[in-house]
């Protein structure tokens, strides 16, 4: 009896120790705009990230532990992102974090994570200063300038359009894209005949549309998100302006097509998601995302999914080791994800080809790919 009860106690103790370590979830922070003007993108990014976590946990987790996403709504605001970063680090004790948010918020949070030595991956925020915060900050999508340069090559060389009007969204995102475009536009024989700016709250572009008609360009390079680009493209076409419009990943959403309607046909964008890709990772992601969320997928969801997968792979290989080892594991990533081949340079920037998509029959489809290692080289400092 005594031996039996001792054995029982011992077994129960061992079992509880074992189960408590199995119940240790790996906490990963995720700041994302769920309310405010960017809520639509944020909701999509969250769905992408949650899908990744589900897939990872269903496949057994990370070295047996389940991954847990600690989500905070940052309203895409730097003022909100900073206390959220502090909270994730100090009270939630996350091992690392991913930003599902825009550049303004991500830039602010990156500094906090770098200072505390917690790895931080920017899923789709493109401002160059984000990775300059330090060696603990990484980015799984292109820097704004790189995408802008790709846009110039697309317009000037691949499509042969030389007279351009540039419409810039006045924020980190829009400005960095246009900076890249203008940096190399002369190399492709592009002449910029008009430059206009608008704020993220604008939806009425009547004056800009009138002026563009007067400028009479071959191509319009317009930066924005789907909720600004949709109205802009719709208004341009309603005014009878049929010039080719080149956008970027901010347009990359079914919502852009919903807003612009038939006006969206023929819009071309540089982005990182190829819906017609034959790559297994991309197709699996698209199918799984549409099944889970009921919506069509978009770039922010794919990018958030990619960032979580990168982090999970690094956690898997660095094991229980400390955050410095995790950082090194992320730095050494070689992973094929829904948005392409991910590997990082010394600054934490990714080097990959730029996908070009076009709206055909009310859906995004493959248009072309831009492989140009020299043009698309990310910054190294």
């Amino acid at each position, binding site marked *: 009896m005594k031996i039996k009860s001792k054995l029982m106690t011992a077994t129960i103790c061992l079992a509880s120790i074992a189960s408590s370590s199995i119940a240790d979830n790996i906490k990963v922070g995720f700041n994302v705009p*769920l*309310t*405010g*003007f960017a*809520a*639509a993108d*944020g*909701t999509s990014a969250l769905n992408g990230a949650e899908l990744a976590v589900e897939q990872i946990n269903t496949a057994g987790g990370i070295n047996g532990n389940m991954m847990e996403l600690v989500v905070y709504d940052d309203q895409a605001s730097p003022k909100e992102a900073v206390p959220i970063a502090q909270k994730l680090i100090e009270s939630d004790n996350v091992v690392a974090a991913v930003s599902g948010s825009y550049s303004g918020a991500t830039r602010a949070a990156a500094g906090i994570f770098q200072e505390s030595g917690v790895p931080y991956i920017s899923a789709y925020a493109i401002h160059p200063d984000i990775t300059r915060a330090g060696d603990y900050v990484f980015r799984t999508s292109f820097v704004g300038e790189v995408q802008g340069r790709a846009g110039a090559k697309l317009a000037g060389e691949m499509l042969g359009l030389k007279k351009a009007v540039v419409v810039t969204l*006045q924020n980190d995102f829009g400005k960095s894209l246009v900076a890249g475009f203008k940096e190399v536009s002369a190399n492709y024989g592009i002449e910029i005949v008009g*430059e*206009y*700016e*608008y*704020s993220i*709250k*604008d*939806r*009425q572009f*009547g*004056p*800009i549309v*009138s*002026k563009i*008609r*007067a400028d009479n360009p071959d191509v319009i390079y317009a930066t924005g998100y789907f*909720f600004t680009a*949709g*109205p802009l493209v*719709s*208004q341009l076409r*309603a*005014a*009878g302006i049929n010039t080719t419009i080149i956008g970027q990943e901010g347009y990359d959403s079914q*919502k852009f097509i*919903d*807003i*612009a*309607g038939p006006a969206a046909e023929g819009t071309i964008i540089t982005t990182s998601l190829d819906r017609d890709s034959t790559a297994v990772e991309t197709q699996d992601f698209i199918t799984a995302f549409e099944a889970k969320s009921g919506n069509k997928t978009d770039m922010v969801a794919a990018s958030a999914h990619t960032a979580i997968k990168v982090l999970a792979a690094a956690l898997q290989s660095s094991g229980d080791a400390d955050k410095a080892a995790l950082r090194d594991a992320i730095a050494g990533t070689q992973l094929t994800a829904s948005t392409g081949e991910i590997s990082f340079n010394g600054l934490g920037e990714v080097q990959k080809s730029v996908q070009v998509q076009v709206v055909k029959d009310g859906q995004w489809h493959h248009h072309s790919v831009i492989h140009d290692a020299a043009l698309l080289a990310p910054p190294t400092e």
Partner: protein
Amino acid sequence: MLYLELFFQGIVQGSIYALIALGLTLVYGLLRILHVAHAALFTLGGYLGVIITNATGSFLLATAVAMIVVGFVGIAVYKLAYEPLLSKPPFISLIASIALFIASEEIFRIIFGPYGLSYTNPPMQGYFELFGGFFLKYGEALVIALSVVMLVILGWFAAATRLGVSWRATVTDPDMARAFGINTQNVRYMNFFIGSALAAAAGVFVAMLNNLVEPSMGSVASYKALAIIVLGGLGSIRGTLIAAMAIGIIESFGTIYIGHLLDRDALAFAFLIVVLMIRPQGLLGAK
């Protein structure tokens, strides 16, 4: 032709601002309350316009229904947020108004979703081309035309009908009006109904021009309408209309020619500051 087009774009935008700011002026004139929540009615009008047009296919029906429904919602806002607070200092109502507005943005997000709504068949696509080179979209022309019609009807109503006269009397001197047997309660309801209906029309027009309504579409309208009524002179209807047009035109030219220095809102407010420095009572305000 470009300058003429930019001028007309300014008139279009100015008309929309006028329709919104007018409701604000009417409430201020009657109750001395800054009705920030007015912008929520603008947004509601926009949503109803899109939803009803998508459901019935008729843009004009949607506009009429939106105006009427939002008119009544405006009365409800008065009863909910202002009537109980009339005896308190005006800043209390202002706080209630701001709170209601902030809540409304999130209520719209909860009810209608974060993604915004668009027309399934955008109405009024296409444009006029006049005198060889002057372009104006059908939608833009409609906005100008309908705004003029509404303002003319409103003006006639205020001047030539019994209800209109009793309304103006109540604004000028509520106690005297009451002494003449005018039901000031009804006048207030009518005031909110009309102001809100105009804001709803503005919302429907904006939805038609942009093909997008979003929960936060009222945020710019909320503070810009305030700026417009201050610019025009608090309580002056004519001042509000002139200020609205002025801001519309300044934004139109400004965004093209000095857009790299100041964004649209900054331009509007810079203009407001300059005018107030010269005329602190606003363009047509009483000294």
